[in-house]
């Protein structure tokens, strides 16, 4: 655990040394802020529905840029060799890096609390649903981060890592949007693996164990694949 924290700490603080993280966070806040306040002022509606509706879309686009360097850069720079020859397991490396990216995403989510707070200033806020939606967003972002980390373990090229993550994230998003087009026997399956559908369930204010388990197992699966990819150097 001490090792995980060491990795996490280093990774988290190195976010603040790179312009990419600042850029991504700024772009995200500007975009979501523009969306949120435009509904607020133009339509005169003080609610979170618009924001929560677009959140999944924005997150699958931005998290790849926050996770792409996690392992790819270490591989490209050769620092991975030094890291993995220290007395630390591959799993600890993966977990530490995952937690660091979740940490950054949490900062991002924390900043967006400005939106529900402004809604509460203006009118009634469905507190329960908002809290649930935030928990859902955190789970969803963590899942995107795990997907991004996994993608980053596949290559030494950060752009490739980001594209793989985008592709997978997009797939898991769009599959929920296309349920109507699917043959009926396939629809339940599509709903089951859609990150978006799961989030919509939670954002309604009901935290169902099945949804939480879905996210947690997605995360665990991706981290396991990342670990296996790191380990594969020893059986090639």
């Amino acid at each position: 655990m001490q090792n995980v924290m060491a990795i996490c700490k280093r990774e988290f603080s190195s976010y603040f040394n790179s312009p990419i993280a600042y850029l991504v966070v700024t772009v995200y806040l500007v975009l979501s802020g523009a969306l949120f306040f435009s509904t607020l002022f133009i339509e005169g509606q003080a609610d979170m529905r618009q924001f929560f509706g677009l959140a999944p879309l924005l997150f699958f686009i931005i998290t790849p840029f926050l996770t792409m360097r996690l392992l790819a850069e270490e591989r490209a720079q050769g620092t991975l060799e030094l890291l993995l020859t220290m007395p630390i397991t591959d799993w600890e490396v993966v977990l530490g890096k995952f937690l660091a990216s979740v940490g950054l995403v949490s900062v991002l989510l924390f900043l967006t609390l400005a939106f529900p707070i402004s809604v509460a200033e203006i009118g009634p806020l469905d507190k329960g649903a908002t809290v649930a939606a935030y928990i859902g967003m955190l789970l969803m972002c963590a899942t995107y981060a795990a997907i991004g980390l996994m993608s980053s373990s596949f290559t030494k090229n950060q752009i490739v890592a980001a594209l793989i993550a985008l592709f997978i994230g997009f797939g898991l998003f769009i599959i929920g949007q296309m349920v109507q087009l699917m043959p009926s026997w396939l629809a339940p399956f599509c709903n089951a693996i859609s990150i978006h559908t799961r989030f919509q369930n939670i954002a309604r204010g009901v935290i169902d164990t099945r949804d939480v388990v879905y996210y947690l197992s997605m995360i665990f699966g991706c981290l396991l694949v990342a670990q296996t990819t790191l380990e594969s150097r020893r059986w090639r």
Partner: protein
Amino acid sequence: MTDNVMIRVEHLLKDYGTGRPAVNDISFDVRAGEVLGFLGPNGAGKTTTMKILTSFLAPTAGRAEVAGYDVYSQSLEARRRIGYLPEDTPLYHDMTVLEYLHFVADVRGLPKSSRNARMKRVVEQVGIPDRLGMLIGELSKGYRQRVGLAQAILHEPEVLILDEPTSGLDPNQIAEIRQVIKEIGREKTVIFSTHILGEVQATCSRVIIISDGKLVADGTPDELTGRKTGTNTVLVEVAVASNKHDPLELIRRVDGVLAAELVPVGSATARMYRVTAEGGQDPRGDIARVIATVDGLDLLQLTPERASLEAVFRRLTTTSTASSDQAPLAAAGGM
């Protein structure tokens, strides 16, 4: 304690899948207190061997132990006892030196109580106390190398594995780093690869030469250069006043002389011969007496010739040049 085997390599073989093993059935032991120079031409398999010793890669066949722990099945225990400086010193360029060393101390589990004292000592040992606040990416190569060395020795490892620790350094820095290696090598075990042969004679108590994945020499620098074993080579220079006697004939008849040949020196009156004698025999006395008894011959010089380490290296590693030449720029980095 001195016969403690700290590194044991047994029939190590690594095939990257190219069909031609990068490391081909290598075996050797290194004891505590030894500084082992690991030599070989480009692409010989030095880096590959080190990557296996540090558990970064797994061997295709054979095994290796560090401090009594198998580097594959007990890799964490082995890694705890190793300090490693990979080729090209990969470091996090976006961290300051101090941040980086703290990170290494965290991962290495250095106790908080003794950490600062230890760090101070190491930083002074490698000569970077005035660079602690700088970003690693802004350091010169030599200083980066020092930071790499600092991270390798921070936890006082029993075994230090350094892949070309002095490449790209200026002569002063090389001398300093050598000094550090020597200091550590007094109690610990050090194995380092290099292409600078002078460095080996200055620093190592033992040398291993590999070529094309195979071990071709293993011994002390003196043993390798033939001072203690093998044949004796002597250079004989004779002033020849008349052509009555051929010194070559006389020398060849001396007891224990295996061969003698003329070495061209471009002088009308003096001739130089390279004389090879049986191992353990010093033919110099007999040669001197034989020459002295002959009129018209004067002995000018009689010196034992020691093969330089470079000559030994070239002789042992050029037989396989054809194959190793194909990969002179072998990128040894990672995956």
